[in-house]
């Protein structure tokens, strides 16, 4: 009896032709990536291109506008509020990152030992990071309220201050207050991520260093810190980008005020583009963020690669 071999057929049922095609790795990969590609193309790549066109036009809400070249950017160059927001963004990012790293690492080291209730402490510590930023920021705004501030009350009763502090009304203090809240929200993320990094460092290394005569401070700088560096750099990368492009905190705390003193890129773009309807100008502010973000990512990725190769 002649047996006709049906290639690829295992059971009695002939698979559908398109299913057969999926046996080819390239076709399968293409199919699996298709939904992602469509969504990301439609809502990331397309808006990015659209953003560039917007920034080069004089579009407003309801008016598609015309091509005007770099006029929007020229205008920004002469805009002192824009330069304030650039400076603010860098200051805000730098200060918060340093503090988040220092405090987060400290907290991670405190958590990287055995004690009772560790799991619960760890779970609670992450709360500031979990709870929607806008909502927890309102709690801070209320704590900073000049008239009803619990912080003023505490400082006064501890004897640190004599008169009320106008936390959010004073231009120089307002930025500091916002920085405090950002640190508060970011420290848990640093702590938990760095804790995970610490746990991958074998305790034997610290023990060996102790036997080799290294005191705790030397053990930290010569063993723990260099070994943690790759994780630290990745955590920093995420945090720096998020902070650089932050919006919610400033929007809720001060809305960019007082007197436009606390604007960041994002809040200023929002104020111009959505608040006053100058879409093109707003898109230009947003887009001005891009070269900086790009540089930050490239520098950090290069550094991470170097650290990891060691």
């Amino acid at each position: 009896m002649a047996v006709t071999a049906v290639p690829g057929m295992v059971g009695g049922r002939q698979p559908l032709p398109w299913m057969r095609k999926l046996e080819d790795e390239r076709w399968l990969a293409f199919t699996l990536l298709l939904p992602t590609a469509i969504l990301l193309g439609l809502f990331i790549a397309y808006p990015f291109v659209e953003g560039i066109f917007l920034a080069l036009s004089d579009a407003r809400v309801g008016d598609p506008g015309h091509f005007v070249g770099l006029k929007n950017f020229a205008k920004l160059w002469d805009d002192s509020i824009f330069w304030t927001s650039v400076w603010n963004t860098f200051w805000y990012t730098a200060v918060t990152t340093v503090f988040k790293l220092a405090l987060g690492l400290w907290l991670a080291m405190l958590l990287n030992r055995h004690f009772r209730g560790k799991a619960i402490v760890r779970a609670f510590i992450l709360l500031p990071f979990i709870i929607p930023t806008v909502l927890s920021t309102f709690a801070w705004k209320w704590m900073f309220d000049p008239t009803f501030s619990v912080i003023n009350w505490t400082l006064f009763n501890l004897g640190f201050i004599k008169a009320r502090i106008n936390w959010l009304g004073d231009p120089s203090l307002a930025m500091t207050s916002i920085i405090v809240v950002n640190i508060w929200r970011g420290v848990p993320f640093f702590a938990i991520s760095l804790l995970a990094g610490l746990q991958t460092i074998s305790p034997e290394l610290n023990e060996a260093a102790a036997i080799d005569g290294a005191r705790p401070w030397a053990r930290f700088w010569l063993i723990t810190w260099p070994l943690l560096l790759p994780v630290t750099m990745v955590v920093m990368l995420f945090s720096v980008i998020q902070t650089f492009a932050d919006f919610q905190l400033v929007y809720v705390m001060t809305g960019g005020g007082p007197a436009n003193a606390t604007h960041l890129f994002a809040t200023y773009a929002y104020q111009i583009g959505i608040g006053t309807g100058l879409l093109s100008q707003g898109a230009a502010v947003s887009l001005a963020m891009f070269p900086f973000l790009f540089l930050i990512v490239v520098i950090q990725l290069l550094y991470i690669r170097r650290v990891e190769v060691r």
Partner: protein
Amino acid sequence: MAEVTLTKLNKYFDTTHVVKDVDLQIRDKEFMVFVGPSGCGKTTTLRMIAGLEAVSSGDIRIENTVVNQVPPMDRDIAMVFQNYALYPHMSVASNMAFGLKMRKFPRDQIQDRIKRAAAILGIENLLGRKPRQLSGGQRQRVALGRAIVRDPKVFLFDEPLSNLDAKLRVQMRVELKKLHERLAVTSIYVTHDQVEAMTLGDRVVVMRDGVVQQVGEPLELYNRPANRFVAGFIGSPAMNFADVTISDQGGKVVAEATGLKIVLPGELAARARTHMNGAGTRATLGIRPEDIHVAGAADSPDHCLEAEVEVVEQLGSEILLDTRVGQALVVASIDPNVRVRTHDKLKLALNPERLHLFDPETEKAF
């Protein structure tokens, strides 16, 4: 002079009592091996000596100074860890230099010591490499080198050979032995491998469940195990045990079980007699496989037993026979030239001088 003395040493982890009343004197320049199954407290004891674990009660003395509260960095010890614990971000040379740098040795002296240690271990060509560029055996050498350059009062080894493959392990064992002879520094070595214990130790401590079972020179443990645990732990293949009743039969002390009747020789009989109470005292009889041979004409029937062969393992240098004697399984190591096959019935003779008797309750040797 670096003696290490442990007095009534105890360790609790929460409520678990892991090291119980350990008393021990480790002499200057001695190579002392702690051996026992995992979880017996040997590593914890070592870590207490290192200062990595706090002492729950009792004292640790190094050179007659109590060091219970002294942190590890001030104890002047060096330790080789099970996973080597090489600093992954430092070169081999920096790994070895680290301990000296921490103790603020001058530069040229550090270089000098590294060079010397590297020469001893044959790792001069590796000094510039990072740990992950090294093979297991090389890492092991670097870990040793890091300990040697320190020139410490005491060397501590925590199962240093357990991550090496079998062949390398034998080789490193020999080198460790040579190294100790050359450096003559008090060494404390923890292992679960009784062969390492027997070959390396000047003296061996056998531990179980946090309790020291016996301390002695390797041969002493082999020839005169203090209890059934030590008897079974030391020696490979392990000692055979059989539950027997001993009784006085016409002036001879006889150990009996189904299919087995052995007349105990003089000295052992005398010791057994002191434990006998009436006819039929229960005891555990022990005999090592290497003390059993196929009976010949010269063997007295007093020390022979009938056995049925179940498995024949030809090892070339010897044959291991798994045999059945009555209810008991007996392993014998016999001359490789004897022809035996599975299901053969044959007569085995025991070397009467090498029989052991243990109390079935306390497991102590008679």
